[in-house]
């Protein structure tokens, strides 16, 4: 049940901010500070989420095969691989390391 609450809250919140952008007069969101913050918040969140989902396990820090997967994804990004290839590289590298007993 709690999962449905989280889904509902996220759905409503995410829809309202999308709609807000289409409806609000431009001046309200055009302030430079608001713009800068809105550009930087996703950077902070994505960086923290990437790190957490790679290096944590059940609320503790952990280094396992996902680290190899992330490294593979980073390499694919440096090589300008398409989106799906980046994700695929991470999956294959992680599975490979696990198969080797990592």
């Amino acid at each position, binding site marked *: 049940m709690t999962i449905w*609450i989280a889904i509902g809250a996220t759905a409503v919140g995410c829809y309202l901010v999308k709609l807000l952008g289409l409806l609000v007069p431009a001046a309200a969101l055009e302030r430079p500070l608001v713009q800068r913050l809105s550009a930087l918040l996703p950077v902070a969140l994505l960086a923290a989420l990437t790190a957490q989902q790679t290096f944590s396990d059940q609320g503790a820090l952990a280094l396992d095969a996902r680290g190899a997967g992330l490294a593979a994804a980073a390499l694919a990004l440096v090589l300008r691989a398409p989106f799906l290839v980046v994700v695929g590289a991470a999956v294959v590298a992680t599975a490979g390391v696990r198969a080797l007993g990592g």
Partner: protein
Amino acid sequence: MAEQTTSASADIPEDGPRASAPGSPPAPAGKPDSAVVRDALGVGIAVGLSGFAFGVTSAGAGLSVGQTCALSLLVFTGASQFALVGALAAGGNPLTAAAGAFFLGVRNAFYGLRLSQLLRLPGPVRPLAAQWVIDETTAVALAQPSRRAARIGFTVTGLTLYTLWNLSTLAGALGAEALGDTAAWGLDAAGPAVFLALLAPMLRTATERTVAGLAVVLGLGFLPVLPAGVPVLVAALAAPAVLWYEGRRRTTSGKGTDR
């Protein structure tokens, strides 16, 4: 895709053809509709298919097929969906998990702001179009040379991406159930890889990199000591913290060009 995302906050002239868009070659004013459709389909298909990774990740995190599909149908902004599922999988409180997902979705308000100037949608259409206001539709629309092309680009990208994202989410969720232990297949690495792919093109300037680095330190540092979901919110403070620090030592030289 992620590359085009960075062009989303570029300035849009009020009217008329645009000389060029960041990240794309200068487009002639008379870009044929078929070319716009082709671009939009390319983006919509590539990103739409990555709903598979979301479906797998969500099912692997313990959400049911119905819950997974509801997220793609109703939330429809990938990073927020992955964030919610990741936080729930880590045992996060549903409201802190939703808060993290919501903050990631806030950028869509700024996309909507750009798009409302560019597309000039009629009032009744806006509540429907709103659900499609995401990174990719914005990037495609902003890259077009005219209002007509932007409208076509937005609509075709939105329709393709929404359809495929939801179908591939369903396929991924069903597939993950069939596979059993998704970790054995390395599929638990899909979520972080998606985040990294979204993040990479944003790391253009020292400011972005500082924010990202500080957020990693905060997010991992508080992980063992705070309840699940909360460290991500603490890490979000890296953004205002770095802005505040920059403001303190600001020289009024123009930094307005870096996004």
